Structures are given as C-alpha cells and as structure tokens.
C-alpha cells in the first residue's frame, strides 16, 4: 500500500464545510477509485462480467457493489469503487473489456466527489443548475451531466425526496465549485440579525 501522502483538492475547505448547518450540508467524499468504461463489442447485457449490470437507461445510475455505475453516454459509463485501488479497478475492468475492443481508463483523480444534503440543498442547486431537480422528475437513481454555476458536473440523485445529491466535478474546478456552493448557500447559512 501506498505510504505517500494523498492530498485532496478540497482539503482547505473541510472546516468550512463542517460548520455548515444541516439544511445545506456539504461533505467531501474521500478518495474514490473511478474508471471510465467503454464496452466495445461486449454486449451490454453481458456487462455483469464487470461485476455490475450497467444501467441502460440514459441519465441513470445504479449501485455497483460498494460503488456506483453511472450512465455517461450510449457507450460510456463511470464505475466507482471504494474497495479497490485505482490500478486494481482499471486492471480488473480492462481484463474483461480489452478482448472485446472495449476500454477502461483510470480517472480516479480526474474528478472530486461531493455530497450535498439537507432540506435546502435543492434551493442551492437551483441557483446554478438549469435542470428540473424536483423529486417528481429527479429522484434516486437519476443522474445528469450538466453545469452548476460555470462548472461542468455529473449530478446524482441519491434520495427520493430531493435532499441528497452527489456531485462529481473536475478536480481543477473543485475549488471554484466549493466557493460557488458556499456563496450560493449564504442565504441559508447566515443567521438573521
């Protein structure tokens, strides 16, 4: 195992996030292994060989063991895992996919994973996301590739009541998005005088 110190892009925001009220909770998810998956000639219904039945419905995600499988495109998925190292995940997937002309690419450090929870989190998201995130249309299992503020994100609905969302953002944009979220939440984090 690695002894080298890992540094999270949002390390400097941890204390600020921790002080937020429950209505607009922001949690930085720790280092998660992620791989971009292309099936190539492997039939989607054979994707169980990857350890998960990949979601076929556009803009959805499913649990995959201790991680998630996120639909990104007609032949593109994002697989996450908290049990494997990035290399283990990529190697395992490539072993299945390469013989079929598919591909798996380690993108663990490409994105940062945030979790937004609380009864006002949908109001915060509405300040910068043009999509309809009402629980009637965006409930657990839904995902979207969209923009939040001026950053591209993958948004995951983690609950049926709109109070729990996962956000995947490019690592280089993470600081911007963190600042943006804190600013967007100001109305709910400032106590009335």
């Amino acid at each position, binding site marked *: 195992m690695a002894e*080298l*110190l890992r540094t999270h892009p949002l390390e400097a925001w941890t204390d600020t996030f921790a002080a937020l009220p429950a209505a607009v909770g922001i949690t930085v998810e720790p280092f998660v292994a992620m791989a971009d998956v292309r099936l190539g000639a492997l039939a989607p219904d054979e994707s169980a060989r990857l350890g998960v039945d990949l979601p076929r419905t556009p803009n959805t995600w499913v649990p995959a063991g201790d991680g998630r499988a996120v639909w990104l495109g007609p032949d593109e998925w994002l697989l996450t895992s908290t049990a494997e190292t990035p290399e283990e995940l990529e190697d395992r997937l490539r072993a299945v996919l390469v013989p079929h002309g598919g*591909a798996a*690419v380690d993108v663990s*450090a490409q*994105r940062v994973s945030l979790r937004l929870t609380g009864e006002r989190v949908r109001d915060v998201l509405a300040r910068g996301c043009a999509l309809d995130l009402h629980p009637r249309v965006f409930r657990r299992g839904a995902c979207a590739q969209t923009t939040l503020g001026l950053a591209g994100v993958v948004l995951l609905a983690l609950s049926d009541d709109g109070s729990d969302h996962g956000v995947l953002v490019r690592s*280089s944009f993470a600081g911007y998005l963190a600042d943006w979220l804190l600013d*967007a939440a100001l*109305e709910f984090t400032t106590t009335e005088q």
Partner: protein
Amino acid sequence: MTSTHRTVEGGRIDRTTTLGFTFDGEALTGHPGDTLASALLAAGRHSIATSVKLGRPRGVAGAWAEDPCGLVQIEEPFPEPMLLATTVELYDGLAASGLPGQGRLADVPDSARYDAVHHHVDVLVVGAGPAGLAAALTAARAGARVALVDEQSEAGGSLLSGTDQLDGVPATAWVEAAVQELAGSPEVLHLQRTTAFGSYDDGFVLALERRTDHLGAAAPEHLSRQRVWRLRARSVVVATGAHERPVVFADNDRPGIMLAGAARTFLHRYGVLPGREAVVFTTNDSAYDAALDLSRAGVRVQAVVDARPDGAPHRRAECDDAGIPVLPGSVVTGTRGVERVTHALVAPLAGGEVGASSAVGCDLLLVSGGWNPAVHLYSQARGRLRYDEELGAFLPGDDVDGLAAAGAAAGVTDLAGCLADGQRVGRAALASLQLEPAADDRLPSAPEFRTPAAPMVLWRVPDTSGAEGTTQFVDLQRDATVADIARAVGAGLRSIEHVKRYTTIGTAHDQGKTSGVLTSGITAELLGVPVRATGTTTFRPPYTPVSFAALAGRDRGRLFDPERVTAVHGWHVAQGAVFEDVGQWVRPRYYPQPGEDMNAAVLRECAAVRTSVGILDGSTLGKIDVQGPDAAVLLDRIYTNLMSSLKVGSVRYGVLCGVDGMVIDDGTVLRLAEDRFLALTTTGGAAKVLDWMEEWVQTEWPDLRVHCTSVTEQWVTFPVVGPRSRDVIGAVFPGVDVANEAFPFMTWRDTTLDGVPVRLARISFSGELAYEVHLNAWYAMAVWTRLIEAGRRYGITPYGTETMHVLRAEKGYPIIGQDTDGTVTPHDLGMAWAVSKKKPDFIGKRSFARPANTDPRRKQLVGLLPTDGSTVLPEGSQVVELHPDGVLPPPPVPMLGHVTSSYRSAELGRPFALALVRAGRSRIGETLHVPLDGSLVPVEVTASVLVDPEGARRDG
C-alpha cells in the same frame, strides 16, 4: 410638509407608521404601503422633473410602470438612476430627486448581492389580478406545480384600485383568501414584487424579483437585493392586465394631467387625492368610475368631458346624483398652467370639427382613451396580434404553443369575465398537461356586469392651438409629438418601425406603454390607412428595465469565471508565485525572489535550468487516453506524422492539422501498449483535440475500434529540466536506471514510489536533459515535495510559464496559437520532418499539395536578433524591408510578417525574437527592420533555433 392630499381613511397604507424621506432635498413623510409617487401626491406635489429636450415640467401621469414621466434618481441608501417614482416603494431614509430624462450611475461599487434561480413548473401564471388568481387557483387545486408572479407589492391587481365586491364582500377579502390557499399548496411558488420581463420559446420566462429594495438601508446583506428567476413552464398564462391609454391634445403634458385609472389607484390603494378640482376627459365608460369615486371622496369634479356624441347614458343618473356635469360630444383641446395644470380647454366635437373652447378651472385633468391589453409577453413569444376596431386596441390573436392570455390581457373588460377567463385558461393549461380540474374549483360570484356604451376610438384631438401638433405629446419621456410623427410620414416613412426610430417614440424606459399604440393610430390616420395595416412595433424584452447588476447576478469577482488550478497550486501560492491566466487555468508565471521584477526572475530561472536544474508544474497539459485495437490507426490519421511505428515504451512528437493543412495543435504521444496511447496536447487545446478526435471517430470512422478519454486532471505532469535533472530523478526514483543508454531520449519508464505508480518520460521542451514526471494527482503534492527536496543540493529552481516560453523559444519550438494563427502549416514552422510522406492519408494531407501551400513566399518561422543587442521587440511588431539604397518603400509599406514571440535570453546574453516572415528561411543572414516608436530597429534574420542547434544538451 404635511400630507395635505391624504384622505381621512382608507387605502392600503399603514397610517400608524410614518416614514421620513426627502425629494429634491425637501423632507417629506409617507406611510408603509406608499410608493414614492403616492407620497409626493399626498403632499400635493405632482411635478417631478423637467423634460429631456424641451425642459417642460412633468409630473406623475400614471400609477405604475406605464408612467412615461416620473423618473427619479435614488441617492440613498445606494445611488441608482432611472427609476419610476410610481414603482419605488417608500422606505424610511429614502433620498431621491427628479430626473430630467437622464440619470447618473453610481461612482461607488454596488455591494449588494444579486442572484438567479432556476425554477420549473407545470403552469406559470403572470399577474395576480382576478384572472391570474383564478388561473393559479385552478391549476394549484388540480395538484399542478404552479408559479404565480406579480410585479406589485401585493396580489390583487386591479382589485386593489377599485371598490369591487366578490361574494358580497370587498374583493380584497377574496384576494387574501386566494393568497392563503396558494400559500398552503406545497407545489405553488407565489412571488410578489416580481416582474416577468421576457418570454421566450418553450415556456421559458425571465422574471426579476425585487427582494429587498423596499427595505432601504434595513435590507439584510446576506439576501440578494434582486433575483432573476429563470422560469421554465409547460404552460404559461399571461394575465398581465391592461394599460390605460391617453388621448393626445395640445399641452397634454402638464403636471396634474394623469390617466383616469391611475387617479383611482391613488385614491383607493394609497388614500391620496391627486387634486381638489378635476376635469375628466374620456372616450369610454371606465373613467366614470374615477369621476364618481373621486367625487365621493371630496374632489370637485368640474366636468366629465365625453368625446362620444351620446356619452354614457346609463351613467348619467349617477353623475347627476353626484352633481357632476357631463359634456357629451366634447373634447379637451388644450390646457393652461405651467408647473401644474390650471385649466382644461373644453370644446364641442361634431363631425370631426372642433368648436370654440371654454376654459374650465382644475388642478387635475384625468384622461382615458381606452385600454391596451398588456400583450408584451404574448407578443415576445411571437404571438400575432389582432387589431380590434371597436376597442381600438391590439389583442392576442392565435394561440401560441404553450402560452395563452387571460382576462384584461386578452381584451376582457369586466370582473366576472376576467375571473371566468382566468379559470378557463387555467383549465385549458391543465388539459394540455393531462390534469383534471379539482371538483371544488369554484369562482366567487361577481356583481352582474352592466354592458358599457361602445367606446370611441380617438387617438388625438384636432389641434386648434395654432402650435400645429408641436405641443401634442405622444411620448412624453422623449418629448416626441404629433408634429414629429407628421414629419416622419412626410419624409416618406410608412413602416411603424421606421416611424419609431425616426421619432424615438417608444424608446424610453417605458418602451411606449402609453405611446406605442397611439403612434400606430396617429400614423395610420396620417397615412390614410387602417390601423391594422400599420400594426405595432415589435415587443421586445425587457418589459420593464432590468439592471445589469441583476443580470450579472453572482457571476462577479472571483466567481465571474472559474479559476482552474492544479494539485500543487497551494505550493505555488506559498512560494509567492506571480500567476497568469491561461484560458481558465491559473498558472505560475514566475517566482520572484525579494527585490526581483519579472525580467530578473525569468533571467535567473532560465539560467538555473540551463546550468543546473529547474522544475515546472506542467499539469495543465491536455492528456487523452487513446485505447483500442485501432488506436494506432486513429492517431496515424489525426497526426501528420506516423504514430503506428512508435514502439511501446517510446515517445514521439506530433503535429495535428485541420483539413486545410494548418496546424491546430501539437504535443507528444506515449505508446503505453500495443492498443494504448497517451496523447498530450497543449494546455489550451485539450478540449478541442478531444472533440476533434471524437468528431472524426463518431462521424467519419465509426468502424474504428478506439476510445478516447480525457485524463487531463487524472495525471499531474512535472517536467524536471536541466543538466542536473538526472541526479534529481535518480535520487527520488531509485527503481529506475536513469543512465542515457538505459533510458534514452523520447522514451518512458514506469516505476513506483512507495507503492504509488509513477511514469517518467524523457521529453524536453527546452533542449535540456529533462524528465517529465507523471502520476495520479492524489499524490501530486507528496511527489512534488520530494523532487524539491532532492533537488535542493543542486539549487532546484521552480520556474513558471514565462521561463518555459523563453527556453522553448530559444530552441525554436513554436507555441500553437502564439507563433501560429490558423494560417500556418508544419512546413512554415520548419517541421516538414513531422509530416509523413509514407502514410496513405491523414487529416490535412491533401491540402499540402495545393500550390498555395508550397509557395516559397509563404510566411515562415525564423529567428530575429536585434542588431543593437538590447531592444526587446514588442510581440506583434511588423517586419519590413528597406530598398537596397536603405530607404523605406513608399506607403503602403509592404509588411513581410510579424514578431510572434520576443524575450530576453540569459543564454544568448541579448534579446531575441521569433517571427513569421515572408520567405523567411531564404532571408536568413539578411537584415530587416522593425518599426518601433517612430524609428526602425535593424534585425538579423536567423534560423529559428538559437540555442544548441546541434541538440548536444538533451542527453545531459
């Protein structure tokens, strides 16, 4: 000053609280619920400012956004220009002044917050008057997601301005109950003080909510002052009511002249008597309500001047009871008074001829020429308007997909009709959404409607004043008159759009709310064509003015544009780096030591790299994982040179061209496996190159079994550069044999550091011995720190983009986008060696055979050395050639090219430049000139590689 014109009771103001404010420096008072205009009128003050061109006194002429006159500047608490006194809610400490047409921007930054919110609904209802409330209730009761927005401070619309009864009690009680019912519906968003100002395709409506403006200095800082709502609705109900229209007559602009309905609003809503003695001039029944209400409130109504030959017979008895003289078949031809109207000039009108006028004393002249439905949102959504001859108004015509007008906005004129129309349109919206109306969706009962006498369509009264229309104001804000329209028509203009632009009518803050349709009518009269043929000008957003601050929202300051940073950004900041923007990336430009300017720092950094070792954060380089059995085939087609022959473990520099054969990007390619490559792009080209590859794979070569994935932020890239780089790399990564023979130039090796995979690559962008360190960004800081520690004994020097640019320019390595501009081929850059002659095809190949691409006179990349050894040529400078006799050719002097890069060189001990110069390579050794500050700087043309042309340094 006391509130001389306040009623004893009534109005929707809080008389128990007194607010202090100043206007034009005068201290005045009002109450919560007042607007600035109502508070001024309560003090007997009509006059607001003088007009923009003619300097004529102007006052409050309307009660809301239709007012063409009452522009004010707010001075306190924050300076803001061009607001209407009729729409500014009064607050304690307000300081305002009248504006003669033009405002003054604040000279201090606006510290208030502004934001935007996206909101999606099934049904959006614009306007909370009777029709809008009915529509919203119908939709909400059916369980639809509803948004109801209204621009006033409270719901009710026209019901706030009258004495209507619903279910036998004042209609405002029904309004309160409706608002409460909506508040209890979880899927209803109800916003007051919110103006829907633009409607667009697919049910997209923009609205501005004024959240804290009315709180003045008490506004909480953490709340946005204004908010732009980005509303998306499956169905939009436009229940925006109607604007009253004046009639044009001579001197119709004096303070004290206002719309009849506005006077009713001031009376009933604000408890204000706009005058003591009134004359009412009308073409329709609605103004009788104003006359009677004002009379009951104690105003002496001198006369109702009704242009219709028979007037309104069924209102006659009421007027007689109230002692109000009615003059049917009469018109107001003009007025007297300067600061305030003193007399209305009344004359009989018969057969289009005006008789002799008599002066009737008054301090208030109310006017009604009919009602224009507020069709703005319908028209913006490209609804086609239809002219109604009887009403003299433009009404919504055919339905627009997903958008319908209801109530007065659709031309309905009575309360019961508006309620029913709102419910009807609300139910139609539900039907389109496949929702059933609720069983208990009932309407309140309204008094029976008395069919009014037919209105008369009268745009203007013939001018008997002798002024020939020059005092008959159509657009009061623009000081534009009937004479101006006549001049436009006389100049041959027939299109209403041209008349608008010629006269400027309708271009002020109110966008012609009172003047637009009048102009159509008057223009039609002058042209002798029907009004429907003239039509209206185009309604465009915004409906009312919106400040740029509100539109900018939170995208200001640091949030204006995302700052992308690398995994070791914090280290750069701690080292005091000076940063520069590279696209959205923020990169260290140089690391100044105490006392150093950029020149000194860059010269030091360059010298350190060329003599010992430096380190750069190159993580911003674009990186694309190209994977699949046909990966090599794709790269052979995308790059100009051969990539399929690259061996696993090796690296090759490649150039990418567009189909025109012009260079679009460049970078190195690492072959990781038979079926896997890592392609590095320029920082700015990362997204473009990935899109480029995807476009070709998806549209032209879908048969290729290859997948491209961005890994730009997966891998950090740290070039360790200089003659001592081998020592540093060897010390940090003992598992790698760094000897030149074992690890030659343009190869890569995988290793691990404490179990973490690391890839090292012998790639040089400086000509020096160099290693790029690639690894998972999680471990970036730890590895960067180790490299710095290991390099300390060699004085390892972190360097920024500026030094990187100098070092590469000394070697003649171009920066795509700086030394190229989309018209430069690889051959122009001296890189014919990077263009394969073996490959059957690749993007750009065909273009290289075109005569223009092989013309020896093309601009080519060369080096320039200013012969004085000291001038740093500005990038962008032109390069010219003197005649053999040393004289500059006569103008226009032929330009041979321009300087693309220019720096001081520590290695050369002098400044140098790269330039694109016509037939440049054939000019090597010649002296050309660069005009600079009025003189000509001689420069020697050289090869583009100025340092180590033999490449002796790259292996250390």
